[in-house]
């Protein structure tokens, strides 16, 4: 069955050239969808098989000078939970779906309101009062129907969190308050999975990656019991370029974590202020 599937995939692949004239075997969205239907295998699994046997799904062609086929397949095999689907989460979902993270859990109990429109990519006037999680699931399926999505219109808490994050290889903190960030970190530590966390206020923000044995968020915010619910964002609001910038940095951390690459911001905090262009990486311990 598997050998037959691989043979069929490779038979459909077409020789193509990258812009630098090196050659590769390309397989199109339409062919993947047809093979998926004909063989009763998910599009995601077809894409993985293609990559592992010398064919490149054309939608990832421009990733392939940065990632090896194994790197790209690792993304397709990974499950990432995006917790919070506002400014950070909407951009994270967009990037992770396009880059080819195979399974996405999208979690947010909130609905859209007009003040979201300045920065939240998933929002639009027609979606007012509609579920952010449902909008994220629709967006992911629109970008790549081969991906698997679980949408949860729920606010993550200590009770439901273990179940929601159980299958997650990495979680992405895109929350909008400080208290729940600590709840999420504790859940990830319990589950033994890494957390990528970013936060924004005005044009400033920071991003870090926390592995289960790392000290994590207390190094940034102090002890949990003394942390206020909201930070400087209550006074400053949030502008789209800072939140999208930090979301992009979170995605780079997610990808490096899945692909087991060096250069993670573990025990480090990248701080940025886009008003004056100051960007620095701080050693937290």
């Amino acid at each position, binding site marked *: 069955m598997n050998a037959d599937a691989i043979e069929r995939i490779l038979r459909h692949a077409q020789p193509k050239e990258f812009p630098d004239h090196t050659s590769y075997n390309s397989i199109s969205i339409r062919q993947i969808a047809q093979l998926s239907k004909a063989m009763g295998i998910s599009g995601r699994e077809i894409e993985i098989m293609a990559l592992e046997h010398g064919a490149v799904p054309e939608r990832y062609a421009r990733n392939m000078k940065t990632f090896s086929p194994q790197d790209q397949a690792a993304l397709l095999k990974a499950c990432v939970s995006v917790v919070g689907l506002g400014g950070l989460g909407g951009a994270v979902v967009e990037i992770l779906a396009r880059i080819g993270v195979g399974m996405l859990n999208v979690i947010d109990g909130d609905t859209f309101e007009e003040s979201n429109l300045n920065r939240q990519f998933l929002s639009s006037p027609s979606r007012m009062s509609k579920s952010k999680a449902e909008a994220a699931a629709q967006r992911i399926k629109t970008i790549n129907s081969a991906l698997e999505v679980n949408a949860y219109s729920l606010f993550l808490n200590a009770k439901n969190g273990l179940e929601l994050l159980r299958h997650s290889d990495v979680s992405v903190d895109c*929350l909008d308050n400080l208290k729940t960030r600590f709840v999420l970190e504790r859940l990830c530590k319990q589950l033994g999975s890494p957390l990528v966390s970013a*936060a924004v*206020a005005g044009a400033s923000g920071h991003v870090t990656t926390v592995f289960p044995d790392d000290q994590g968020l207390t190094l940034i*915010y102090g002890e949990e019991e003394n942390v206020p619910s909201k*930070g*400087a964002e209550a*006074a400053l609001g949030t502008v789209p370029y800072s939140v999208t910038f930090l979301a992009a940095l979170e995605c780079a951390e997610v990808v490096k974590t899945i692909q087991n690459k060096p250069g993670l911001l573990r025990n480090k905090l990248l701080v940025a202020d886009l008003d004056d262009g100051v960007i*620095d990486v*701080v050693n937290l311990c």
Partner: protein
Amino acid sequence: MDRESYIQLKLFANLQNFMPSTADNFAIEAGLTIGALLAQLDIPEDKIKLVFVDGVRAELTTILDGGERVGIFPPVGGG
């Protein structure tokens, strides 16, 4: 302990309201602690959780000699 020295000061997010006009070349007395620097800038200590000196997380008791880059972040949690 009364030598005049200079630090490069960077205040993030809403702390910019406390930013002195001379932030890029801010005069301090060598031996000043971060806590004393906050007092000098009128920044309430309880508003601050994260200070870094030359790219390393510092404490309120960390001493400045002059020549350092000092960054101060309030808690931010927006997304």
